[in-house]
């Protein structure tokens, strides 16, 4: 594409005849000094394909949401979110919804504390080869398929430690999956906190814990929040690591950490859709709809929270 530079230098007022002699086959400009027909066609075709691709990405998304809503809405009853599932497929999804919320809260507490602390260490203290070893270990863990974690959780926690299907086994398995995301986003956010903040805190003689709590971690809050939200989204949507660790029950989740299975929404979708009874099938569609709505709420909430935390940290 070196040629158009020379051609493009032709004064704007120059008539077609100036260029007439230069224009041969494969010329990059046409008689009027515009890009040649071939170049304009390529440009049009290229952008057309890109626009088409952009549009095509929207098709499956809208189709999925429409398909789920189309199956769930016609027979929707509000009792779906107030009653627990019965063994005949009647009732609703209250126990699954509560179980999913408990799992989310547990992941925020367990994976949140480990992940944030780990991110702090990686950003503030981890140097050299130890740091890169810890970082790559965390990244590799994030890449392990969730079903493999579910298998190990089942073998090690449910059977090995005799916890049976339980909240503790499910939470630990889900935390293995989510800690790397929280640690990474915390680390990245803390690295972006200006060194001057730390030097200022040091000059004021602030203890290190106070510096962390009131200065660096507070400034990194938007990043930490993003990591936590990703973890919440994962605990909302994952099935494979929970099937063999959380088990399933028709009862509302209790307080015991072990020896008590927990119901959750994705289980209902996965198990009920090919049951012979239409009551179960309808519950499956309802669960899918509730999941999609929760994802939507989560995305909206995350935008609000990130906007709020950003404002908060900037005003400081």
């Amino acid at each position: 594409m070196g040629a158009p530079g020379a051609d493009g230098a032709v004064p704007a007022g120059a008539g077609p005849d100036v260029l007439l002699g230069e224009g041969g086959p494969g010329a990059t400009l046409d008689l009027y000094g515009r890009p040649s027909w071939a170049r304009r066609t390529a440009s049009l075709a290229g952008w057309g394909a890109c626009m088409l691709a952009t549009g095509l990405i929207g098709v499956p998304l809208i189709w999925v949401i429409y398909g789920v809503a189309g199956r769930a809405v016609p027979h929707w009853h509000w009792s779906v979110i107030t009653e627990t599932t019965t063994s005949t497929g009647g009732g609703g999804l209250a126990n699954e919804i509560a179980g999913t919320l408990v799992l989310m809260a547990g992941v925020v507490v367990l994976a949140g504390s480990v992940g944030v602390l780990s991110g702090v260490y990686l950003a503030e203290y981890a140097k050299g080869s130890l740091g890169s070893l810890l970082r790559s270990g965390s990244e590799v863990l994030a890449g392990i398929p969730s079903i493999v974690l579910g298998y190990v959780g089942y073998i090690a926690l449910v059977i090995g430690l005799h916890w049976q299907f339980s909240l503790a086994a499910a939470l630990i398995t889900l935390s293995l999956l989510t800690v790397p995301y929280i640690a990474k986003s915390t680390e990245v956010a803390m690295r972006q906190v200006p060194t001057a903040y730390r030097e200022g805190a040091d000059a004021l003689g602030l203890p290190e814990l106070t510096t962390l709590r009131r200065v660096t971690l507070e400034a990194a809050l938007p990043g930490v929040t993003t990591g936590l939200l990703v973890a919440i989204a994962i605990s909302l949507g994952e099935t494979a690591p929970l099937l063999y660790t959380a088990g399933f029950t028709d009862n509302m989740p209790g307080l015991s950490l072990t020896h008590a299975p927990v119901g959750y929404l994705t289980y209902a979708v996965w198990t009920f859709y090919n049951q012979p009874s239409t009551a179960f099938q309808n519950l499956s569609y309802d669960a899918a709809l509730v999941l999609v709505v929760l994802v939507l709420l989560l995305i909206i909430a995350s935008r609000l929270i990130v906007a709020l935390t950003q404002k908060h940290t900037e005003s400081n």
Partner: protein
Amino acid sequence: MALAARQAPPAQAPAARAGGRGRLAWLRASSRRLTGERSFLRYATGVAALLPLLALVGIVAILAAKAWPAMKLNGAGFFWRSVWDPGNTYGAPVKTDGVLHPVGAHYGALPLIVGTLASSAIAVLFAVPLSIGAALAVVEKLPRRASHVLGMFLELLAGIPSVVFGLWGILTLGPVLSRDVYPAVASIMPDVPVLRFFRGDTGYGEGLMTAGLVLGVMIIPIVAATTRDLLRQVPVLTKEGAAALGMSDWEVASKVSIPWVRAGMIGASVLGLARALGETMAVAMVSGSLLGTVPANLYGKMGTIASTIVQQLDGAFSDGTGFAVRTLAEFALLLAVITLLTNIAARLLVRKVAATALPVGRGV
């Protein structure tokens, strides 16, 4: 921070050092610094940072310990056999090479390896062109508002649970494709190598092609978002220079921006591939779950390693010798190794371009 703390003695130290009591106070202060909250913080966070690595080692160790007897008995032929026979789980078990197993238990991984690789390849071939096209349009052509809308779309697509995609695939997409699309495609494809796989029995919408397409939709967010973020890092001056030479905006996009981030784009695609290889629930719902046979064409029923683990683990416990569970551990180990290598390759490629924050997170 640590460095600054080490260099600077406490502010009152010079004055305090004059008298004996002051010296004691200074000593106490410095010992508090050494053993007090400073090291507490360092150790507490250090332990937390060590946990993922320990967990990783533990996971691999548990898998390897569980899988070792199965690996011994299944041998190397495991990787190219096409068979799935749990054996006679009701009869008396036998011992071969010191490994207890039911009579006639015989497993092969080839159909599942083929299923895993083929469905992920279809997903990548489907998702990558769409993702790159959309990323180009959003970064180089469309107004900012369109970019927000696409960002929202990608976030939603990344957030929708795998089982919901599976439900859509089996109830909506599969039937539509097998009724309106697959027969038409199968009837026009010529009987030549490669394209031959598009011919033949088109089935009822459960199978390789449907699984690949659903996977493709699921990996669009990660590929598109990563590519978009990479394209945004192309320096404006370089693009303006190209435009000043007379290039049209399409030529700038295709001949400057794309080559600029090529390695990163390949990395993004491999990141998507890694996601597709490990995806479980959606595939388990739309694959048709065929064991022990390599699918004959692109519409055939199949299974992937991940989908088979999730579907077979429950039943594997009916094998009292534990051999079926051990074989599944071997599959889990195999899957972990495959995705691990893919992820490492992807991250090396992406890091080459994006030295700063890697776009981790599920897609967006």
